[in-house]
């Protein structure tokens, strides 16, 4: 076996044929006997060992059905999109980091308190309030893959973290499992942004009064932990135009939630605009004729 950079060549344990594990892949199938293999590389700071995983629960057929239903709902998508079969379908264990921390926040805001004035109209009095807030932030999942950006992962969240399992090669055996391609620091920063946004959301529900304005807060995150977690995702690539890149649609492999970015069909927008203009013209014509 040789390990050059992160690419690994190994002999298949079943038939002896050579298998190549690409640098960002944790799993491979022997091209001759189809035996699934899992590679375990030495740990590095940006490529730690997976700690947790979530198993696939949605079958290929179910994921395809959900993707088709979702595509049918994209009325303003390009022509022909609904009829195109998925060019590529992959069930991938996507590397993500599961982040948790203790969040200590100081905040200040103007709190609105309503009251009835002498004229019996509702009036608002603003009172300053500052204070401290402390909570654990948990279950923040951010992508560790350069291939799938974080907003796409957010699109298919939430994952049911109650079904989390300790990582074992058996979980990914026979599937594509990607290694992290983003640095841990990059992912940690992404997670910190999500954690801070989450605290801001909590604060909005926490503060009293009839409204809040000018909320300022500063959050310090302590006792952080990031655990590499493999998340199950069905990835569909649908090509609707040979000149354009395919559309990527993700299906949560655990819950079946679908997300994708379908471009707007300007031809459909133009047709609808033309239809509306024609209707307006006809209505005016009718009014003119009836005079």
């Amino acid at each position, binding site marked *: *076996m040789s*390990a050059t950079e992160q690419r*690994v060549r*190994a*002999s*298949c*344990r*079943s038939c002896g044929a050579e*298998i190549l*594990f690409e640098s960002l892949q944790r799993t491979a199938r022997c091209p001759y006997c189809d*035996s*699934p*293999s*899992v*590679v375990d*590389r*030495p*740990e590095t700071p940006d490529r730690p*060992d997976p700690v947790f995983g979530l*198993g*696939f*629960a949605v*079958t290929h057929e179910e994921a395809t059905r959900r993707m088709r239903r979702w595509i049918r709902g994209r009325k303003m998508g390009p022509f022909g999109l609904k009829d195109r079969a998925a060019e590529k379908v992959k069930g991938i264990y996507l590397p993500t980091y*599961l982040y*948790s921390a*203790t969040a200590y926040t100081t905040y200040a805001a103007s*709190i609105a*308190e309503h*009251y009835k004035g002498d004229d019996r109209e509702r*009036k608002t*009095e603003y*009172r300053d*309030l500052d*204070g*401290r*807030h*402390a*909570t*654990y932030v*948990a279950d923040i999942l951010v992508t560790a893959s350069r291939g799938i950006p974080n907003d796409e992962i957010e699109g298919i969240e939430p994952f049911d973290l*109650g*079904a*989390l*399992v*300790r990582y*074992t*090669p*058996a*979980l*990914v*055996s*026979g599937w594509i499992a990607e290694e992290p391609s983003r640095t841990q620091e990059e992912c940690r920063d992404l997670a910190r942004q999500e954690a801070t946004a989450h605290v801001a959301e*909590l604060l909005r*529900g*926490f*503060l*009293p*009064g009839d409204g809040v304005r000018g909320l300022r807060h500063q959050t310090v995150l302590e*006792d952080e*932990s990031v655990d590499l977690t493999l998340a199950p995702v069905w990835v569909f690539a649908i090509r609707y135009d040979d000149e354009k890149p395919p559309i990527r649609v993700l299906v949560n492999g655990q819950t079946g939630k679908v997300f994708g970015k379908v471009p707007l069909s300007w031809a459909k927008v133009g047709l609808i605009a033309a239809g509306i203009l024609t209707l307006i013209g006809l209505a005016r014509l009718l009014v003119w004729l009836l005079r």
Partner: protein
Amino acid sequence: MTTPSAPCPRCDSPLEQDDLRCPICSQATPVGAQPDRKDATVEVLRCDGCGSAVSYSEKARAPKCAFCGSVLRLETTSDPMEQTEHFLPFTVTRDQATGAYRGWLRGLGFFRPSDLASAARLESLKALWWVGWVFQADALVSWAADSDHGARRAAWAPHAGQLEMPFRDILVPATRGLSEPETAQLTNSYRLDTARTEPLGDGETIVEQFDLRRSAARRQVSEAMGRLAEQRVKDGHIPGSRFRNFAAAILLRRLVTLRYAFPAYVIAYRYRGRLFRTVISGQDPTRILGHAPYSGWKIVGTIGGILLALALIVGLLALLG
């Protein structure tokens, strides 16, 4: 019952051995030391039964051998039914409980039937252990609320604060058999330092079982803690006398939850054909709560007497005026 392992490094709460993450703060539980690998290793997972390669099956939701159908178990957070760990012994005998019940009937007051103590017929006296959790924790409670203190033009003014709040030996009932007022009456009658690991009874004692899984139990304890924290903050920390929009964030540390069985007697008695129930602590016969009938004649007579007295006073005042 699972064996507790090392406490969580973040919140210092004890962990169950099969927890993957701390149930309080979600910190991953530590795994044993892993061997330091210099080279990549490749593994083909084989079925223990037939030796064929194993792949993860989304239908089985587990790694499965395609040939013989064997399924491998993955390590996940288990969610077992709660089991009692500590039993408090009965220190009140059946005779003492019966005596306490008779005394309670006699001391219920004027508005009960005069023959209640003599006519009530004891139908049954059952000894039972009812179940509940006892927890201890340290919490940093952040709160915010509107109160009437400091109000100006509006009726409310906003307030906020943060305080350390210890919780010591807080009992959260898990029983389905006893009502909330009954367990509230019994709660402070028990001595936790008398706990034993086995039930010691006369063989006729009923042992109630927890009918909740661990995750549901944790939720119930957290909710009880939230309610208690809110009550404590409202009682002594928010200025003013009227409140609204109360919110609290609780940062828990060192949460220890123990599962207890508490001794009690449940008495059923019949009075003029109707059945009533009384519950007595198995460790303190003065802790007793039950239902008893009221005397309609006495209530009507008292109200009539008061009305008559009022009418006499009004009549007298009219004559004098």
